[in-house]
């Protein structure tokens, strides 16, 4: 966590292989992410990482369930299978009946839960979440966080989350402080 402009999103983007750091190494599963070619990093992001952003990641033309199925479709899963897998997430996240809605017809919390389902549907090893509750009120934000933590635990997905809100950071097992582009709080492992 850290204040706005501190560089936490940049750090997240570096970790996720979106950006290449000017110096330093990023290791994932023993491989140097920063040394990979863009296409390699893209497929890494597509196949082994999931993403949740603050807002606006749902493609407006697609229904909610299609949006969730998008990562599967992108990795070449057949449409029917992708949609049925995506549909399973709706009950799990308390979104029953919203499958056919467009993103414009969803509330912020609903849209964010759909986004969460999209981030997790491909069973990624790591889920990168950049201010996933930033556009939500505290209660909705906490609901989303609850779902995120439980779903990730159930699935064995590591979550790397960027936030400036301490209450959201408190869901984490471990936090890293970023200020002025530096990681400057000692790691503490709580459990």
């Amino acid at each position, binding site marked *: 966590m850290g204040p706005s402009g501190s560089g936490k999103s940049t750090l997240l983007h570096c970790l996720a292989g979106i950006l290449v750091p000017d110096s330093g190494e990023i290791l994932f599963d023993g491989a140097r992410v920063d040394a990979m070619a863009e296409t390699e990093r893209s497929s890494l992001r597509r196949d082994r990482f999931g993403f949740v952003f603050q807002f606006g990641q749902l493609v407006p033309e697609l229904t909610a369930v299609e949006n969730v199925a998008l990562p599967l479709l992108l990795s070449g899963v057949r449409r029917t299978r992708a949609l049925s897998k995506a549909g399973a997430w709706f009950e799990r996240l308390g979104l029953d009946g919203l499958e056919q809605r467009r993103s414009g017809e969803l509330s912020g919390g609903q849209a964010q839960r759909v986004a969460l389902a999209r981030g997790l549907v491909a069973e990624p090893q790591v889920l990168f979440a950049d201010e996933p509750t930033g556009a939500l009120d505290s209660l909705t934000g906490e609901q989303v966080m609850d779902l995120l933590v439980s779903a990730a635990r159930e699935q064995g997905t590591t979550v790397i989350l960027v936030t400036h809100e301490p209450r959201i950071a408190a869901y984490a097992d471990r936090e890293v402080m970023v200020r002025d582009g530096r990681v400057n709080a*000692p790691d503490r492992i709580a459990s």
Partner: protein
Amino acid sequence: MSVPLTLLGLLEREPSHGYDLKRDYDAFFGRGKPLPFGQVYSTLSRLARDGKVVISDVAPGSGPDRKRYIITDVGATEVEQWLTQPVEPEPHLQTVLFAKVVLALMLDRPAGEYLDTQRSAHLRRMRELTEVKRAGSLVDALLADHGLYHLEADLRWIEMTGARLDALRKEVRP
């Protein structure tokens, strides 16, 4: 709010008369509640008794102001310990936190690090409360929320202060 430790901290800047200590205390930490002279002197004599301060040259004349107090190694160690250790993360801490930050700045100590340590302590507590909330009943959750929101407020204050340490340093160390 710990008056003895604050006075000790003020003494660590330089040996001072009781009157100077009261004036500085009132200026930075009193905020409408001036420290009575009586309390200043009783506290100082208790500190002297415990060997945390010594009285240097007593000037001629009468009255308490003739005495100049100097902090001892024992006293300095206690100030050091107090500053480096985080306060127990409980609500309504800002006065203590504030005193610690100001003193740290006056003493040219790493105030930012103190704040970081404090933030970690707060976050750890928040994490515990969040676990309680997630696992427990609604009543537990609501109580935990109460704590969480107050801790969050403290954390915000810590952030703000952390961001303004340089300005504050100029203010307390003319």
